[in-house]
């Protein structure tokens, strides 16, 4: 094959591969993603049976432990609306009242039922300012 045509062909193959990769990336990421919501978002609009990621702060004096089962309330980062959460599984070390957490699960009859081991607590920043106010 004439080298110039060969080079052109290679370029097309490479571009094709890149487009394919980009397509896969966009498709898989949108289909695999979970939406992050705050309690107020879920209270106003939520599809039953759909999985969400709930983020917010743990409400003061709301944590209750019963053996493995943990119940607590999550409130909006800057608001008062809150949702009760039931959770089972490993509780991360920094889990505390007032800390920001992320948990995935579904809303069932007004309670957010979390998936096992899905609780993530934000590291209490290396900057301890927040910690003292919490």
């Amino acid at each position: 094959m004439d080298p110039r045509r060969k080079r052109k062909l290679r370029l097309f193959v490479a571009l094709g591969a890149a487009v394919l990769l980009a397509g896969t990336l966009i498709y898989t990421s949108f289909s695999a993603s979970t939406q992050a919501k705050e309690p107020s978002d879920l209270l106003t609009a939520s599809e039953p049976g759909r999985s969400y990621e709930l983020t917010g702060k743990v409400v003061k004096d709301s944590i209750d432990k019963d053996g493995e089962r943990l119940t607590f309330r999550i409130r909006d980062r800057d608001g008062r609306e809150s949702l009760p959460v039931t959770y089972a599984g490993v509780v991360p070390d920094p889990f505390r009242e007032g800390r920001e957490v992320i948990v995935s699960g579904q809303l069932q009859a007004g309670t957010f039922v979390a998936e096992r081991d899905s609780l993530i607590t934000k590291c209490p920043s290396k900057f301890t300012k927040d910690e003292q106010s919490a």
Partner: protein
Amino acid sequence: MAGVGSACLVVGLLTAVYAAAISIYGAVAGNRAAVVSGRRAMYCVAGLALTATVILQAAFLRSDFSYKLVAEGSSTDTPGFYKFTAMWATQDGSLLLWAVLMSLFASAVLYTTRRSLRDIAPWATAVLASIAGFFLLLMVGWENPFETLAVVPAEGVGLNPLLRHPAMMIHPPMLYTGYVGFAVPFAFAIGALIVRQTGADWIRATRRFALIAWTFLGAGIMLGALWSYSELGWGGYWAWDPVENASLMPWLIGTAFIHSIMVQEKRGMLKVWNVSLIVATFALSLMGTFLVRSGILDSIHAFGASTVGRQLLILIGIVLIGSTALIVSRLDDLRSKAKLDTLLSREAFFLANNLVLVALCVVVFWGTFFPLISEALSGEEASVGPPWFNRVTTPLALVLVALAAIGPVVPWRRAGRALLLRSFRLPLTVAAVTLVALLAFTDAADSTLSLVMFVLISLVLSVVFQELWRGTRARQTIAKVAWPRALGQLIGRNRRRYGGYVVHSGIALLFLGVAASSAFQIQRDVRLSPGESFEVGGYEITYDRATAEIGRDAAGTGAPITLGAVLTARRDGEEQVLHPSRNFYPSRSGAAGPIGRFFEGEATSEVAVRWGLRRDLWAAVRPDIADLEPAIREADSRFADSGQDVQAVVVAALVERYRNNSPPANFRAIESPLVSWIWIGGMIVVLGALIAVWPAPETRLRRVTSIYAAKLGKELSRV
């Protein structure tokens, strides 16, 4: 002393501005004296930053709480080692660490290139001085680490207990050394572009620095993973968290860079690609610093809102836009001397490896920034989790390992088919035997992707082994020495090449650990009373009894209370005893009572791991202190006004009660096959990189011979 520290930063900033300005003047006017002055000014910047660091460190070591930073990040009960490292656990301190490492690195490279690269070096000095100046400006303008408190507190807040782990404290300086190290090749690339000397000179001068930066960044990432595995009580080493990804991205592009510069050195190709890669690497390094500081993405490492996020973003913008404009304006000078002859050549394999690494980086970037992307496109913030990352990166990783197996034996320019067949006869046989053995004797077939990975790894290792063996045999015949010496000479004379092979084998072992532990690990979470047992993988684990200690934390982190468990693990008639525990640090908020505060503060898992070449047994405990709570509450009201020594006795009694009652506790146990090979592979990578970086005696020899050759030539021409 705080005043002296602040002054160091201000003078350092002014000196950096001077260094940049005088270097540009020297380069434009061709004034050598100005260039020399610029270089020496850069040494001064390094000296000033170092002085500032020493002053701050001294304040940390003697717990001088008049420094705001010391009061917030340290305390008298923080152990000495952690006092020393607490500096970079704070934002202002880590900016100072950036500045000092950056200016030291810059000084080192400017010193080694002081007699060469006369045209490029002044511009590189200007770039390096500007970057160092930028970080000094951040501290002078917004985040002064030498801020003092009007009212000196009696005690500091203390270092976050989660960070009290040796790996965690060496990890940030290593990452930063990696980040700032990439500034050096970046600065020289910019210099080369400005003066249109786009050959391989700038690469030869800075290659070693790029490799050092790459090694430190890689080692830093590994230490972060090790910390995650052995300190955070979840048992994993990688969570695809934005902050982890932020350090992985520059490392991936840096890996592409140290491969593709070889193509430019040997064949004069890929020039635009190389300068683009180093610009991207440096921009991603800044991005790593920015992501950690900005709080724009939800991460488990939220470092609190930072005041310097916007400034960092502006710097990234300047770097990207300025470099792109410069590259575009120099496209004519960057044209390749040679063309790619065939796809079956070393350069084509390097190119393929580069494309895969860049694709990996794009994938990681997309996933990391997906919340922002999705919010921009659909208005809803959504994120992708670890399963998505694993699914998308695994195929790319497989291709990468396959390329690492084939690439090293394909010759430059053009490979003959016969030669390739000969080179691959042994490795392919080994791979085939591995496949059969895995299918016959193990459950590896349960995970197809892991099986493919194992076979490819055997291919990489046998290729490396074959190369070493052949080279050693050849050396044995030529030099007539025994094989260990021949092997030593072989590696010593070709450090870059064989160092590279060692790195490849280390990466292969690392992937072995990752593939095996992610596909075949078994994890159980249970709640047990003393005497009860459970099974995880091939182990039967019994909870023997509870432990409780006061002031006797085995890890030396300074925790007053340690509650734990004694576990006995049995496998094939062998017994092992594990001591997982949990450290409790007193709460400093006023909400908890005088006794309760000892139990309601931070708590961290002290994981018990039985390390093994075949498998690790990992166990963590979460003691349940619910039984103690009524007693704690009662003590809070009864001993509220008692002296500290009485309160200490009460706490000790409560802890004693936990030990005697041995209430049920929650456990997580993991059997993880071959996971140790991740750390072993990582160490081999560092070893290989050291071999490649170590200056060969040969270059000195070559310089001498070339002088002799020139003399001889002169004499011959006279005849």
